[in-house]
């Protein structure tokens, strides 16, 4: 489903605008990321897109058609997971999915098939009769997303879905979203963990104070803001001084040094792409530095975001 926002605005009191002048195109079948600090208007935008909040101005088009006065039909094509939506703790996953499937008026037989399939897809079949309150956080989050997909929507809207998840659950979430996208569903996701959106999203939009700052393909935005640096964290077993000596000769900027779990740590910005980092690592190893790990700590998207924030401050 392709979604288009034209000059969308929302005010709750006729004076202060939660969002204003928001014009966006969300391509069909893409994963679209919405980025912004708290209070930027992300949740309001997502709730308008989920048709649970009416915009004060502007228009919203789903597959080119304007939002009808009675949005219940379009909601049949949307799955929405708002921020902080809990489960019914006493319901089992199967009961929970059945409940929401019936709220989407799915026929009984189709609903039972969908429940079985969804439980398998989300790896919850083994817990189908366990009360939701007894599931792990990752499982609960999977169940919440499964609920949004039980009626086979064309548009999946997730507000901060990775919030509070451990790395394993985040990884599961990524694969679920990619699988969902592969089925032709348009996915709209907001998150503050930008390094995950970086690799996941096809397109992003950055909001600040209710206004759209930038939107488009991730790579184009990164290039447009001339962000060609990567930030890495090196943990070395020995030879920290030697490492700093070698790094002085490379196109890097050492941001900080320190210690982590008893090992010296160096944070550095690399000017260039990942090949540049590979060359630096080779030089360090050849120079006798015993590198334990080299991990990326910040994405390009995050740099774009930080830069935009700096501009805002300036």
């Amino acid at each position: 489903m392709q979604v288009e926002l034209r000059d969308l605005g929302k005010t709750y009191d006729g004076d202060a605008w939660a969002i204003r002048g928001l014009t966006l195109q969300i391509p069909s079948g893409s994963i679209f990321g919405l980025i912004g600090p708290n209070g930027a208007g992300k949740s309001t935008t997502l709730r308008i897109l989920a048709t649970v909040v009416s915009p004060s101005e502007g228009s919203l088009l789903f597959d080119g058609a304007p939002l009808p006065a009675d949005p219940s039909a379009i909601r049949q094509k949307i799955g929405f997971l708002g921020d902080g939506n809990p489960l019914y703790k006493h319901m089992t996953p199967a009961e929970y999915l059945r409940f929401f499937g019936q709220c989407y008026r799915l026929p009984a037989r189709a609903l039972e098939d969908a429940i079985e399939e969804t439980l398998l897809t989300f790896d919850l079949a083994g817990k189908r009769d366990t009360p939701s309150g007894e599931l792990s956080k990752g499982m609960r989050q999977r169940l919440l997303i499964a609920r949004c997909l039980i009626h086979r929507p064309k548009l999946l809207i997730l507000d901060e879905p990775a919030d509070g998840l451990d790395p394993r659950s985040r990884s599961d979430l990524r694969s679920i979203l990619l699988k969902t996208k592969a089925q032709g569903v348009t996915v709209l996701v907001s998150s503050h963990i930008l390094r995950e959106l970086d690799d996941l999203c096809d397109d992003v939009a950055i909001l600040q104070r209710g206004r759209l700052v930038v939107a488009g393909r991730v790579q184009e935005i990164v290039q447009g803001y001339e962000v060609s640096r990567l930030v890495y964290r090196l943990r070395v077993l020995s030879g920290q001084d030697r490492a700093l000596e070698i790094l002085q000769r490379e196109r890097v900027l050492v941001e900080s040094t320190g210690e982590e779990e008893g090992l010296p740590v160096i944070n550095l910005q690399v000017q260039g792409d990942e090949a540049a980092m590979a060359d630096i690592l080779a030089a360090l190893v050849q120079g006798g530095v015993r590198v334990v790990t080299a991990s990326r700590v910040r994405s390009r998207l995050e740099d774009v975001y930080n830069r935009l924030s700096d501009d805002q401050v300036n």
Partner: protein
Amino acid sequence: MSRLDALRTAALPFVTRSLRGGRLRRLLSLSLMLSVLTVILGTWITFGDGDFEEDVRVAFDLEESRWSRQQNDYVIIVDSDEEAALLQAELGRAVYSLDRATGYYTQTQSTIDDGIATLRWAATANTDRSTADDARAAQQILDRAGLPTIAPDSQTTWSWFNWYTEEHARRARSIIAKNLVPTIEVYHSPLSTVDAVRITGAIAGGFLGLLLLVFGPLLAGTQIAQEVHENTLQPLTGTSLRARELILGLTAGALLPVAIVAAPQVLLLLATVAFVGHPIAAVGGLVTGVVGCFFLSMLAQLLGHTLGAQRSPGVLGVSLLGFLGVLGIIGAVFGLNPTRATLGVFTLLPEASTAHLLRSSLIPHPMFAHDACAAHSADWAVVLGTVGLGVLGLLGLRTLQRRIERTSAPALTRGEALLGAVVSSLLIVLANPGRVSGYSGEAYYVLNLALIAVPFAALLMMRVPVGDAPATLRRVPTAALLGELGLWALIQGIAAVALEHGHHESSMLLQPVAVFYTAWYFAVVGLLALRVAARPLGLASRIWVAFAAVFALIALPHVGRWIRPYHGSDVDHLFMLGQASPFLGLVQVILMVVVPLTLLRALRRPARG
């Protein structure tokens, strides 16, 4: 999809949720147990010989009280054969000393002494042709016993007797027939199997009323409070269910357990009514019960939705149970034992009208058998109340719908709120028809003013454009809303005057001081309603709002004083606290200015930083 199909599919998820797991089995078991309990209770109350069962039967006029029977039939009723044998032996001794038993004074002697006194009265009281023979017979018994025919001491015996009073004549004739020797009976319930059927049906009706008017609304209100409290309502608003369908679905899900438990009670009621009762009254009782359940459920859901975010569902549930329970008790008292003066309550309390009709279907109140006018008034009160509460219930549904849609528009339109105000005014005035003229007429009028403040404040809150705006950002059209409240108050005044049609003292309602205090009272009520609905309440503001609400009531005694006919023109009554001390009078004047001003100030939109 037809509207009915849409509603059916909307209710399905909530009904399925209510019955998931083993819930249906448990509810059916409960339903069966309650049915068995109803039959057991019915049989016990009908045939039980204990004091409690006897008291219940007497209270519902199913049997004559023991005291009344002892008096009128000249019997001594005891609880056991042993006691009867003892009294029988005592009676033998007492009869031999009819003039005056010596020694200790027993129940038999007391009864015989009362009998002698009655015969003396009967022998000397005025008679006519139909009672002259009875009076002579009384005299003969006294003569045979050698007792002088003197009028008894009015200080120690009945100070009154007359042959034209049915009970007196019945008592005298019983004593004559028994030749001054009372009979002794062991108490047994006088009721029959038909009565058992009737009482079982009445108990089923009682359980039904309890389920419909207390437990149904309680579950509906608590459930929505829980949905709001745990933020599980929000995802439901994003499904294909429209807001109205969602509310009706939630209500259906909450009421289904009640319906399952209540179903056998309905069958019991209808079956017993078909056998020994009045089916129309029973069906009427069911209709008023269902409409009352709808109204109270909407009210409870509104409370649950409004307060669910701030209070735990448990606290709200207990509060609702207290509120509904108290209403239920009051309604049952007025409904089961109405008087001509309290028939109006049927318009306001569905508990009262339901209890009245369900009782009337099986155990009609004696008042209505002898007083066709009262029966007519009761019917009108029930019909008007049911229609009125149905309208208010629909307005509640509309309000909830808009609250759940979280539109920025008010929960009620101006017209809807006006309709609600008119209906509330009529129901309250009809429930409590005061007379400005006559004894304590102003008290009724003032009581109505106090009562009407509740629905008016609630309706005004529904007129505040809340939407999903943060409380501090809400724009409140204070003047326009107070204008609407003024119109409602005017309508209420007109309704009160219309009811006083023909009473010249109605003009007292326009007494300037009374009008001033009435206007001040409604203004403060309105500002309080807007303050609570539109702005956040901290601890200090809560205390101030509570104080202001109590202080607003000071207007009522002033209104009552100044609409009283011939009140004079005593300026001391302008500010009543001033009668206690001039300082308190000054405090009253200051507070009457400060209270509305502070409320008004809080409603002004805070400056944006």
